[in-house]
């Protein structure tokens, strides 16, 4: 079954670019780009460059920086907290990226396949978690997950008292609990993306599948899923960045504890820069995390472009 292929989020389809070339004067592009780019260069890029520069210095954030070459980086690679936190970030990728995408695909299948009434209510309601501030989300879940909180009360009520846990304080369950709150928060964005994508799938494909006697699962597997590939890529990149940069939610829920079970790189950066006055070292961590994010995003994009039929230029 051949399906319409798609370019990735990061690409401009070359075929289109070749055929239609409405604007003869490409320098105009720079004019359209200039005002925003100027602001970006001054207020985002310049501070980023400074961060990279400070990663080579011993610097408290308010002292005279002292050049120390790559010393911050050599220290970093021997720092257990760094490895523990980057490991936790990758653990959270499961909950911030993989699970939300799977859950969103499932919900998309339910919401788009059946032409039932009231679907827009579900669509709106299911997106609510994503709209709320992550600090508010953290405060609410901290309460829900408390030892005598509503979730444990509910477990006792339905006779599953044996499952009661001090979720956020438990060495074993805190990472999972924090992760699931992340899943609850992130799936909405994926879902809306997928629904949008599914609505633009050619109805003829479904008709064809039905003629061949496909059941609901086969239809999803062979029609919906392949058509959603570009949206899945976007969702992956956005939620992967979210998992690697997560801060507010962990800060409010557990502060990285118990022990260092939910400690993540952003928390480490924050503590090194602002609690321990080691802004130079914190900058080095940020540089390494950024490189990891870039490498993973570009790899995923590359794999996607190789599998897809269209060329991708980043």
């Amino acid at each position, binding site marked *: 079954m051949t399906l319409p292929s798609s370019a990735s*989020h990061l690409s401009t*389809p070359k075929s289109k670019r070749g055929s239609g070339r409405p604007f003869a004067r490409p320098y105009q592009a720079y004019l*359209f780009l200039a005002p925003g780019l100027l602001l970006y260069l001054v207020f985002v*890029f310049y501070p980023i460059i400074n961060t990279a520069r400070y990663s080579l210095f011993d610097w408290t954030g308010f002292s005279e920086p002292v050049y120390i070459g790559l010393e911050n980086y050599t220290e970093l690679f021997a720092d257990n907290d760094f490895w523990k936190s980057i490991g936790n970030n990758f653990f959270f990728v499961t909950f911030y990226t993989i699970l939300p995408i799977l859950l969103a695909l499932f919900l998309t299948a339910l919401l788009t396949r059946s032409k*039932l009434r009231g679907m827009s209510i579900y*669509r709106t309601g299911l997106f609510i978690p994503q709209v709320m501030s992550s600090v508010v989300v953290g405060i609410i879940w901290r*309460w829900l997950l408390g030892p005598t909180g509503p979730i444990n009360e509910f477990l006792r009520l339905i006779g599953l008292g044996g499952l009661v846990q001090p979720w956020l304080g438990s060495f074993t369950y805190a990472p999972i609990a924090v992760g699931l709150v992340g899943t609850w928060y992130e799936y909405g964005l994926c879902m809306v993306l997928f629904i*949008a994508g599914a609505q633009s799938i050619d109805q003829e494909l479904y008709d064809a599948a039905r003629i061949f006697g496909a059941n609901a699962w086969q239809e999803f597997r062979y029609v919906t899923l392949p058509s959603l590939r570009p949206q899945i890529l976007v969702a992956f990149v956005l939620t992967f960045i979210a998992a690697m940069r997560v801060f507010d939610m962990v800060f409010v829920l557990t502060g990285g504890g118990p022990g260092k079970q939910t400690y993540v790189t952003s928390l480490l950066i924050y503590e090194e820069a602002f609690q321990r006055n080691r802004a130079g070292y*914190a900058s080095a961590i940020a540089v390494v995390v*950024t490189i990891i994010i870039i490498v993973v995003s570009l790899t995923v994009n590359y794999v996607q472009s190789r599998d897809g039929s269209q060329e991708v230029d980043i």
Partner: protein
Amino acid sequence: MSALSTRNRTWLTYALLTIFLIAAVAPFVGTFLTAFKDTRELSNGIFALPEQWQFDNFEDAWTGARFSTYFKSSVIVVVPVVVLSVILSTMSGFAFGMFRFPGQNVLLLLILLGLMVPFEAVIIPLWQLMGLLGLRNSYWALILPQVALSFAFGTFWMRSFFSSFPRELVDAAVVDGCNTWDVLWRILFPLSRPALLSLVVLLFMWTWNEFFLVLVMVTGDLRTLPVGLALLRGRYASDIPVMAAASLIVSLPVLILYFIFQRSFIRGMIAGAVKG
């Protein structure tokens, strides 16, 4: 699955969706109900209705915790950030989506970088820059960086929209003698409504909820709601109903905007999201 009758399948779909819907909105509903309660009533259970619907908690948060002041600051910051960054990223999205120019990919990657760097590390250099420009402790210190960050996201958003735009329309306009500026603002801009509205909701949401930048850059009356909420959540605050009311005050504007734009939002996602 195929063993199920259509009607059973319909019920199963509704049941599954309802379970997920409850999981999605229950925390919000609980917060909503709690905000109207007295501290004593908490033991009645989270979903028990308030004995008396009272607004004391909102009043405490609004006047006592100076949320009225923080609300004003939030509005003063969020409006220019959203307006400016939507305009700027429409233009840059247009440049990336419709033109082919040297350095295009490098510039795109450069802008993408802004979305990937952990922000906590950039804040001190940014703080120094604001000092250098004499803008610290002013609304500009909140607006300019957030416009620049939103521009990074908005450029991607609008770029994918414009690159999937039917070329025939643009070609026709050019033939009719429209210049590039007119093509963008007279033809493409009005047609981009769905993508723009969803961009507005996302940028509004992120700007509205920004905490760290506000904490570091400004003091006093210039602070916005999330910092006000954090102050309320101080070491000594244990008044859950007031916290619930305060959380609602912070979340409500975004929710209202979302409900208003909901339909266009979903449609905008179709357009703004990647298309082949």
